[in-house]
């Protein structure tokens, strides 16, 4: 079946019977038989305990990692048949915020980190990106820290800078790897409010709703914010449905992610 259909309901990202391998050891399969599609405007929270393979699943969804088995589609096309130039275009449509400080380039300032993807893809000097970078830095509350070296920031600010770097290319899909881990309640609220605004259609994205997928090891903050839920547990993928379905779900692993 061709998935290249560009109708409005066409999935943006899709996995078909995909086995997810570990990034550190590609021969080790962590999750088996994932079939999942991401439609425009959706807001997913994917729960899983530590070592359940959340990061590897997200890397596979983003096209950074090939599934050990099964199929993977980015905007309706398999990355295996895409030309390198098309893959680069697809990557710009997907924003990815890594966990644990967002993997910023430590030797650069926050402003340089945020400007890099714009400068690279638009082949322009940093001066030409000043306005866009300033807008995204203001959006993420980083204006005061713009000229600080990224390595000097604490983890929560680095995570915000990584969000700014992912947003600067105005992606259609934003993937977040455990973005709330280790944040205080005030920071958690800030993140959830901003993600909600982006999903609803933020002026930075010209009012177009941003499709969101976040992995988490604590589903509680997401239960009133995300719209679709899933679990990764014991090497399998379990789609829970919407808020009401999740509240009624009896999956035992769900309790681990919803209670202290």
């Amino acid at each position, binding site marked *: 079946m061709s998935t290249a259909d560009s109708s409005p309901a066409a999935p943006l990202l899709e996995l078909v019977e995909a086995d997810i391998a570990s990034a550190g050891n590609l021969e080790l399969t962590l999750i088996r038989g994932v079939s999942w599609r991401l439609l425009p405007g959706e807001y997913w929270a994917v729960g899983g305990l530590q070592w359940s393979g959340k990061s590897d699943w997200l890397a596979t969804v983003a096209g950074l990692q090939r599934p050990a088995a099964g199929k993977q589609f980015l905007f309706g096309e398999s990355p295996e048949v895409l030309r390198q130039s098309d893959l680069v275009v697809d990557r710009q449509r997907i924003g990815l915020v890594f966990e644990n400080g967002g993997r910023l380039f430590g030797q650069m300032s926050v402003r340089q980190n945020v400007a890099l993807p714009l*400068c690279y893809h638009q082949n322009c000097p940093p001066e030409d990106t000043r306005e866009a970078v300033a807008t995204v830095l203001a959006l993420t509350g980083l204006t005061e820290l713009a000229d600080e070296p990224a390595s000097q920031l604490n983890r929560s600010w680095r995570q915000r800078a990584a969000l700014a770097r992912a947003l600067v290319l105005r992606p259609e899909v934003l993937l977040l790897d455990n973005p709330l881990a280790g944040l205080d309640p005030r920071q958690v609220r800030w993140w959830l409010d901003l993600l909600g605004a982006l999903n609803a259609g933020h002026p930075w994205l010209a009012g177009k709703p941003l499709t969101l997928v976040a992995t988490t090891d604590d589903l509680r903050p997401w239960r009133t914010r995300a719209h679709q839920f899933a679990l990764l547990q014991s090497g399998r993928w379990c789609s829970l449905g919407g808020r009401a379905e999740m509240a009624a779900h009896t999956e035992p692993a769900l309790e681990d992610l919803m209670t202290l």
Partner: protein
Amino acid sequence: MEKEPAKPSSASLLQDALALPLPQSYLNFVGRQSFRLLQTIQGVGAFALITLGVTFTKFNTAWRVTHPLIRAEIERAGVRLLPGVLFLGIALGLVIVGQTVSLLTKIGAEQYAGSVMVTVLVRELGPLAAALLVMARVGTAIVIELGLSRAQGEVEALEALGIDPVHYLVMPRVIGLAAAIFSLTVYLIITAVVSGYLFVFLQDVPLLPAAYFNQIAQALVWQDFLLLGLKTVTYGTIIAVVTCYHGLAQRLRLEEVSDATTAAVSQCVVGCVFADALFILVYLLM
């Protein structure tokens, strides 16, 4: 009284030792090392081909980002090493050129001074000394910085942003190191030749500056300039590719970075010596 057994002679001991099978562990060791060597050659070769492909096809892609990186690499590997290279040039001039010319003059063979210097300095010592200096100062730093970048996941972050890590991280280093080693070699040769004459002058050797420089100019042929350029660019490419390979090719743990640096240095030296051997063949055919 019981007769004491006769002591075996050293010849029979040697024969006994040779008749013994080689220890299996030793064979395993040789096998493992050979296999590892082949794997390394395959890995570095593939990485070199990818790098050259990216360099030729994407040289002008995002040039406003990558060309400043190339300039920065030339500054790091070239301009900042200039004082060290000048010092090395002066030392080489005094130690090798000055003494060689002085000796040749004493035995009445001063007419060979130009050929000796061109062979020693231009063809062999100049490029190799500059390459080794760059490898020691910049090559090791490349393994460490790329190894740390990989260990901290920055390379995956580049891929996620649609930035080709070979284009952004490796290509500027290859071009920068190649250009830097070529330039430093030229400065090193000029400094060694001039300081060599100073040594000759101080020793009261009856050799006029015009005769000295004329001998060198006459000993040089156009192929020397071409091969000097090719050789230095080859050295720069080898050093950059090998050090980038060790920093990037596999995800290193922090404690593995020092071992990767040591391996890269030894492989750079072996690579440069092999390249030198190939160029010697070309010189012999000239």
